[in-house]
């Protein structure tokens, strides 16, 4: 059954379905209950499932995330909401040294059916401390899976898959996407949680994005199409693991790749993607894999500077055109 839903509603629906189906699923975080969630994702659940299963926590990120870890070890399926990713650094020990390592360190004795939901990214003028991205940080943690839905449909699917998974999953939700709308089919069989999606087919170059940048890549592709440039757009959907096959198949066809990331460029998420593709597709690349990334600067509060510090659609189209330049030369 397909409905038009907002991104937050899709997440809300996914939580509701899983909580109704399985008593071991519970939600906790700051203001997820009575208040209804900062981005409304948990709206209505407190009334429906009660305060024990929709638990408002004190401002104690490391400990309530660790609480989720402990509960997951004994078979609960906690969904921890860290109000925004900016506070996730406080909880990093519980995530990295707890959730990601316990199954391994114990010699495989314990499951870790823990989901950590984190709204993040650069929203609108929230300034340097409230505009973290951190995707590369989570990517570098073995034992952690990182999903980055860009559409309401993926938000719905991937949150349900994350809850069903016995591995710890970090779900990075982009703050700017909560009020975007899209069709959600609640009956269809979802693709694997980490499978990349080709959002648009094209032969001239491959644009690679995730979360918000996947949408920007599609906008850029539409604009490029007006000039006769056919960009293929891949939405990664998962940053760990990464669906390399879909990526290299595309790049081997287009011979050019542009990675779009909101992470700061230096050692950001795009570095891994660019490095791996440059290696995997070396002999088929006609130009260096390029990155359109955020500037290596803390996010300024000022609106114009903030906007200039992260990728804009115009940056993507400009980079795409520049990337195609050498091809013409090579062909000539």
């Amino acid at each position: 059954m397909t409905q038009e839903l907002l991104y937050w509603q899709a997440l809300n629906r996914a939580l509701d379905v899983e909580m109704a189906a399985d008593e071991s699923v519970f939600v906790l975080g700051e203001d997820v209950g009575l208040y209804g969630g900062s981005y409304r994702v948990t709206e209505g659940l407190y009334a429906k499932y009660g305060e024990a299963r929709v638990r408002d926590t004190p401002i104690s990120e490391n400990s309530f995330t660790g609480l989720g870890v402990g509960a997951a070890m004994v078979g609960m399926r906690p969904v921890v909401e860290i109000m925004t990713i900016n506070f996730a650094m406080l909880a990093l020990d519980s995530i990295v040294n707890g959730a990601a390592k316990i199954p391994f360190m114990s010699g495989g004795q314990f499951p870790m059916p823990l989901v950590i939901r984190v709204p993040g990214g650069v929203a609108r003028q929230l300034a340097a401390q409230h505009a973290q991205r951190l995707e590369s940080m989570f990517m570098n943690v073995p034992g952690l899976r990182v999903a980055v839905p860009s559409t309401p449909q993926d938000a719905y699917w991937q949150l349900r898959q994350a809850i069903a998974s016995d591995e710890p999953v970090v779900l990075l939700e982009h703050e700017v996407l909560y009020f975007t709308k899209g069709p959600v089919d609640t009956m269809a069989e979802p693709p694997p949680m980490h499978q990349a999606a080709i959002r648009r087919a094209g032969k001239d170059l491959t644009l690679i994005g995730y979360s918000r940048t996947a949408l920007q890549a599609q906008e850029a592709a539409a604009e490029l199409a007006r000039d006769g440039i056919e960009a293929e757009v891949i939405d990664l959907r998962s940053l760990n693991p990464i669906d390399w096959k879909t990526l290299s198949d595309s790049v081997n066809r287009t011979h050019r790749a542009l990675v779009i990331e909101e992470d700061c460029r230096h050692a950001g998420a795009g570095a891994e993607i660019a490095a791996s593709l440059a290696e995997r597709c070396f002999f088929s690349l006609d130009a260096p894999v390029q990155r359109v990334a955020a500037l290596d600067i803390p996010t300024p509060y000022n609106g114009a500077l903030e906007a200039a510090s992260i990728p804009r659609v115009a940056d993507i189209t400009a980079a795409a055109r520049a990337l195609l330049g050498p091809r013409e030369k090579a062909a000539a």
Partner: protein
Amino acid sequence: MEREKMHRLLRDMMLSRVFEERAAEEYQKGNIVGFLHLYPGEEAVAAGVINAAGPSDYIVSTYREHAHALVRGVPPRAVMAELFGRATGMSGGMGGSMHMFDRERRFMGGYGIVGETYPIAIGIGYAIALRALPESVICFFGDGAVNQGTFHESLNMAALWRLPVLFVCENNHYAIGTDIHRHSAVPEVYKRAAAYNIPAEKIDGMDVLKVYDATRHALDRIRRAGGPQFLEFETYRYRGHSMADPGAYRPPVEVKAYQVIDPLTIGAREIEFRYPTPAELAAVGPDNIARLTEHMISVGHLEEEEVAQIRKEVEAAVEDAVQFSLASPQPTMADAWQHLNSNRRHEQLLQA
């Protein structure tokens, strides 16, 4: 207390109130963007505490710090321009509402991650102690911030090394939408200081004279005896947590109870948690402010007409701040890079 001082307190509180209400208005117009956490209802704390501090004391504040900056003497122009993100703002437009700094006035910043003020404050305190200076640090935080691990860690170190830090809890009973009884096992915040052997007191934070006196005494004790002190001020915010919060989680009856404290109730509309219209704003009046006003009039320190006069003055100052901000230049990306690299000094980086 001398007349002069009381006038100062009253003016600071009125300026803070008018400034914040105007900020809300400018937010609705789109001149201010992002998170905006306003202070109405809590003015007695900022005014009482910061007026009791000396110029060589340091202030470490939170994301709800505009009033703190104003009371500290930062010109309304610089505070408003920061909210507007202009180059003339306190932080050059880089920090915005939550990150206001004024080095000269020892206003050591507003911090946006709950619980960050403690370590910064004890660090400044440690520097003071190392240099054996007669200075103190005032560390602000809310009731919700008390549950962050850094509270525990930092208070322990402050007590262990007898650092000159005054911990000031602005207890407005809420961490966003979560009532203190739902976030703290021991809701009497000041009692938690006992776990570190830090002397602590709970004070009515709606009474600026009590706030001022308690702070003076606490700072005196720090200067005389060394070591940290702790003050909890019970207060209340009339608005939602931020401009994004309708505040629907608070029972109207509770809000009413806090109004009773207030001898005048012109502020009533405000507490319905709609954002006030300009007309309503104009009608917004005293509460903790009214209390001081009444007191001053009753002891003969103030005439009715003076109140209107002060209000006119602060309104003019705020209007001026808005006009100044509107006329101020936007910072450029070159400014941003310069701020980032401000401490690189003469060092030449290799072609990077």
